[in-house]
């Protein structure tokens, strides 16, 4: 027999897409919104140009990294193509004291947090497993084990609570934490436990789910039969869906949720409805499992194009702006290329460093064993 897995009461998820918060249409038209407009009323044309710049430059970093992988400079890359607005919108809603816990795909959030693009490459080149200092940018290391970071974020937020860094009204003190994860991740026990911990402890954490419709080859229907933002309601905190390709809407809803957190009002879930326009990673071949037409459909919703259209239509930019940005973009990419190639390979014995803060003698003996072994070649002509 064929198992009928369709939810009789709810039908196909795509067929019943709920309202999503949108402030900028794919055509670049500003959609007024009674509430969310107030959250971005301070945003000037200059700011929007800034957001546009973020989108363009972070995409450029991403595409350069894809190219570097093709050239053999990186072992792998997880492209965020198509998800720039979700990442820049939420990333720019963060205050310096806020803290972000990413997956492996939050390159534009990293950009917003001031992490050097080159630093992102180490993990994918295979020279390290995270080369930036999370204490500097309040941007945690990339986490590959799906969902694990959502508990870290929640625990971190519990620490923030204990430090009295919420609800004081001091905008430079009150601190929110944001946890990034994908649609696939929502199926992991850890993510659900994070929801529970956060709600029971009323922790200042925002769960930011980039629903890019795919977990590698699995479409959203394999993870849920209702829109993901609704999960939050079952755990007792607010959840909403935002147009993840609309940087203004993402900014507005993130600001709201982060401020709730900073004010001590607890967690929220944001489902940024977006699309993974590229492959899952550079080793993936999406033509095996999805239709080209789908991609075309989403290309029309491109997160960058709509901001460009808005800027142009509103006469908020001139050609010079675009030309400058192009130049900046190419320079960034060029620097990235150069810096990537210059990333040094680690020393063999470096693998014994930082296994422990206080390394035991037994491990140091293994290090010496390796060093001696390697020396034995140096003494000879070379390896046999």
């Amino acid at each position, binding site marked *: 027999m064929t198992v009928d897995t369709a939810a009789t009461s709810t039908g196909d998820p795509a067929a019943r897409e709920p309202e999503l918060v949108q402030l900028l249409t794919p055509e670049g038209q500003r959609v007024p919104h009674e509430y969310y407009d107030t959250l971005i009323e301070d945003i000037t044309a200059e700011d929007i140009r800034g957001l546009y710049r973020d989108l363009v430059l972070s995409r450029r970093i991403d595409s350069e990294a894809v190219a570097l992988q093709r050239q053999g400079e990186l072992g792998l890359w997880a492209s965020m193509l198509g998800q720039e607005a979700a990442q820049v919108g939420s990333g720019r809603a963060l205050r310096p004291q806020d803290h972000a816990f990413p997956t492996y795909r939050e390159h534009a959030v990293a950009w917003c947090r001031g992490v050097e693009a080159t630093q992102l490459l180490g993990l994918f080149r295979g020279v390290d497993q995270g080369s930036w200092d999370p204490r500097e940018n309040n941007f945690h290391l990339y986490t590959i084990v799906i969902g694990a970071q959502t508990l870290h974020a929640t625990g971190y937020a519990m620490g923030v609570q204990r430090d009295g860094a919420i609800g004081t009204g001091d905008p430079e003190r009150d601190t929110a934490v944001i946890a990034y994860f994908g649609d696939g991740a929502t199926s*992991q026990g850890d993510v659900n436990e994070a929801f529970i911990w956060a709600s029971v402890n009323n922790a200042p954490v925002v769960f930011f789910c980039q629903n890019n419709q795919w977990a590698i080859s699995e479409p959203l229907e394999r993870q849920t039969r209702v829109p993901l933002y609704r999960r939050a309601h079952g755990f007792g905190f607010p959840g909403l869906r935002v147009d993840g390709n609309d940087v203004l809407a993402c900014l507005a809803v993130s600001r709201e949720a982060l401020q709730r957190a900073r004010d001590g009002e607890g967690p929220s879930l944001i489902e940024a409805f977006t699309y993974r326009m590229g492959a899952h990673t550079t080793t993936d071949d999406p033509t095996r499992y999805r239709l080209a037409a789908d991609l075309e459909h989403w290309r029309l919703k491109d997160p960058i194009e709509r901001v460009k259209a808005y800027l142009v239509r509103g006469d908020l930019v001139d050609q010079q702006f675009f030309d400058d940005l192009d130049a900046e973009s190419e320079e960034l990419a060029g620097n990235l290329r150069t810096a990537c190639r210059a990333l040094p390979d680690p020393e063999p014995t470096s693998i014994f460093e930082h296994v422990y803060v206080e390394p035991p003698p037994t491990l140091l003996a293994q290090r010496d064993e390796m060093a001696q072994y390697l020396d034995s070649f140096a003494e000879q002509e070379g390896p046999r």
Partner: protein
Amino acid sequence: MTDTTPASAEKPASARLTVVKAINAGLRRSMENDDKVLVMGEDVGKLGGVFRVTDGLQKDFGEDRVIDTPLAESGIIGTAVGLALRGYRPVCEIQFDGFVFPGYDQIVTQVAKMHFRSGGRLRLPIVIRIPYGGGIGAVEHHSESPEAYFAHTPGLKVVSCSNPVDAYWMIQQSITTDDPVVFFEPKRRYYEKAEFDLDAEPELPLHSSRVVNQGTDATVATYGPMVKTCMEAAAAAAEDGRSLDVIDLRTLSPLDLEPVYQSVRRTGRLVVVHEAQRTLGIGTEVAARVTEECFYSLESPVIRVTGYDTPYPPARVEDDYLPDLDRVLDGVDRALSY
């Protein structure tokens, strides 16, 4: 069989297959032979798995038998337990070695113990396939060798194939086993090829090791991806006039050490080789047992040539972490220098 499985009928009995294709063929055979056999995991359906090990199976056996699961390993193993209790024989894929741990509780507290707890009334014929090991330039969590975590767990059987022929037979043997089997696939040997007869009988039962090179000077015991490395080492040693007995352990729990004991009684020296970290790795158990059994024959302590006791390192330095031909030979030298 039926028209749901057209591919196999046309397939020639003898074929030249990679490890990936051999496991695929073995899965296909098993599914043809027993319609209770299911394949489940992340991306195993339409995509055919990230390594294409399950390629084409969903197309031929349908979505009920080849299940793209939600993204959660505990869910994969836990629902496989339920399916097994209902009479199915689930073959679960864990996408990469480092991602088995969210499913570890279900494996250790449920899968391993159900037969025992039930006084033998319940059986869980579940196979958990895990592509494992390094040497492929991957990012963290994608190159680990967690086999000892399973071999330390009573109630589980643990095997690792090292070549296409074994891959083909061992997956089928694992599926017909009524005990749960953790099946480790040497991912960096996935594209090694061999020509063999798909319709022959398996040469050996599942839980048996095999002498893959005959020698007299020292014994090398290994498994999975390191078998090839050790064979290369044996070839290099032969050029230097040294002959090595190389044993492919194949089964890690239970261990089948009789051939190792026999060899060590002749050679007096044993080198155990694996990628996993040294402390409490499989080599440790082999060393302890061989020392217990062959105490008077050993002329040197058992030498463990393994990964180091560090997390799996970044790809650009993995070659220094992993045992290679030279480190195996160095181990042999050390054994012989006693």
